[in-house]
């Protein structure tokens, strides 16, 4: 409760990226992403990732923060990687692995998995890594040991197009995640919101209420920590009434979730009404023309970033059209 909950991943240091105008950062990231989807060549994609890494090192944000964002999608990443690798069957064949599944092998693998599930209770982090090691060993056993009692054999063929495609997807997703994390790690949520408002301003002419929209976003962001606090209180209050959120059958689980959600809805609505009243009492009129307390201003570094990211996009499109890279 007393632990301050910080929303977003903003990492406070001082680097040239931190000092950039949020509008610049949003547009540059946007351009980079478009370029990323234009590229067709794996080596060029590697260069894009390298570029992202270089920018990341200059941002003074520790690399571990970026790897954390990878951790969340690591499962999907591995899944798509192997899916592409194993199922694409065109181009040149690179390697063949033959696996022998014998009874002893099967028993060994089952033992390994039991060990893994037991270790889950003790080891809390790096579970995905551990699982992949376990999988790797179990496949290794099947290649290496050829005991009797053979159950069945199977072969896995790897083709070059499969390898290229899987690398391609892997690199693209990693680059995408890194660059978007860079934006959220180096820009405060409020700045991000201000930048977004400024960029979307032209939409006002076609009847989009940009300031109302961004106001909604900033209020939502502002209330996340408050609501997390409230949720913690409700969790504790219900725990005092015998709710054990860690165990229980499905029926009990549903009841537990209801006992959290209903009070949270009530609190959220009450807060919303209170806030609306408070804003109105202070003379807030939606969509009234107003100035921003933090004026956004472009500097030389902003223009350079703009120029560079725009050039990057132009070059990639050029390479795509004339060299099909």
């Amino acid at each position, binding site marked *: *409760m*007393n*632990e301050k909950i910080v929303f977003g991943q903003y990492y406070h240091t001082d680097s040239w990226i931190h000092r950039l105008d949020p509008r610049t950062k949003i547009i540059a990231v946007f351009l980079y992403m478009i370029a990323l989807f234009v590229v067709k060549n794996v080596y060029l994609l590697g260069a894009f990732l390298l570029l992202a890494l270089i920018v990341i090192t200059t941002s003074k944000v520790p690399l571990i923060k970026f790897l954390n964002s990878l951790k969340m999608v690591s499962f999907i990443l591995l899944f798509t990687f192997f899916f592409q690798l194993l199922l694409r069957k065109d181009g040149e064949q690179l390697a063949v692995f033959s696996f022998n599944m014998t009874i002893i092998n099967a028993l060994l693998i089952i033992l390994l998995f039991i060990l893994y599930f037991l270790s889950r209770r003790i080891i809390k982090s790096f579970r995905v890594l551990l699982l992949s090691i376990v999988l790797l060993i179990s496949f290794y056993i099947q290649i290496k040991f050829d005991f009797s009692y053979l159950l069945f054999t199977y072969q896995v063929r790897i083709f070059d197009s499969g390898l290229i495609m899987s690398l391609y997807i892997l690199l693209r997703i990693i680059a995408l995640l890194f660059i978007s994390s860079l934006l959220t790690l180096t820009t405060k949520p409020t700045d991000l919101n201000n930048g977004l408002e400024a960029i979307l301003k032209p939409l006002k002419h076609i009847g989009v209420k940009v300031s109302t929209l961004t106001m909604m976003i900033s209020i939502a962001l502002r209330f996340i920590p408050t609501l997390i606090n*409230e949720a913690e*209180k*409700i969790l*504790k*209050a*219900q*725990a*005092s*009434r*015998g*709710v*054990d959120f860690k165990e229980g059958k499905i029926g009990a689980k549903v009841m537990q979730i*209801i*006992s959290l*959600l*209903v*009070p949270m809805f*009530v*609190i959220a609505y009450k807060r919303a009404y209170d806030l609306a009243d408070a804003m109105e009492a202070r003379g807030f009129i939606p969509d009234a023309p107003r100035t921003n307390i933090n004026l956004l201003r472009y500097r030389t570094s902003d223009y350079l970033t703009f120029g560079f990211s725009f050039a990057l996009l132009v070059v990639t499109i050029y390479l795509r059209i004339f060299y099909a890279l």
Partner: protein
Amino acid sequence: MAINFRKVSYSYSALKKNKKVKFAVSDVNLEIAEKDEFIAIVGHTGSGKSTLVQLMNALLVPSLGEIDILGTTITPHAKVKLKPIRKQVGLVFQFPEYQLFEETSLKDITFGPKNFGIPTEEAIQKALDVARLVGLSDDILKKSPFAISGGEMRKVAIAGILASNPDILILDEPTVGLDPFGKSELLKLLKRINEEEHKTIIIITHDMEVVSQVAKRVIVLDNAKIVYDGDMKALFKNDEFLINHNLDYPEIMKLMRSLKERLGVDIDIYQYSIEEAYQELSRVLGD
């Protein structure tokens, strides 16, 4: 002893070597009896009161030291079943009306007992009993907990804890936000539970009126540490201590003090209830 704290500290951030952490509760030794105690915990915002009571029903596990709660010992790492403890030590949170969620108030009161494994029939019977005890009419029990007044909601929430029949009852700022009538009613109820059923009751409060009216023992927390643990009446006689820790006197004592000064009569200003004050005044001024 029902609850026994031995050198207990608690920090909301993880303890790390070579790193100073801020303790919300620091080095607390405390003994609380299972029966007949009425304890008020006072202290400023952020002094660790709420943390202390959450340690008492194992919502929080100590970072250092150990706590005995009705025969179960809780240490920083040992794994023990916490649910039975929460049944035996009922904790009513601040603004408990926000924890209501059921369709009817009656169902909400039975939610706790049912979670602790009491059969539905019995839980309903128990709920009706406590509803009568806290003064909720059948009419309110049938209504949605969101369709009744704030004071009634609080009664429903308190009944929800009482229905589990805890041995020890803890309330975090139970009188905040209640009107004077609701406040005095609640205090009367707590006093009755304490006197008739001999249950130990612990309340957190800022309100010295509440302290002087109901508490027998007072625990004063200041900056995560217990600075006073003892008799309520003795606390208010210790002027220097009260000033040092920015604690106020009850209104009745302030009145008696100013009467003593204005009238220049020799009266005993340490009176804790209106009746006592009246008797003292009539003793001095009656003739």
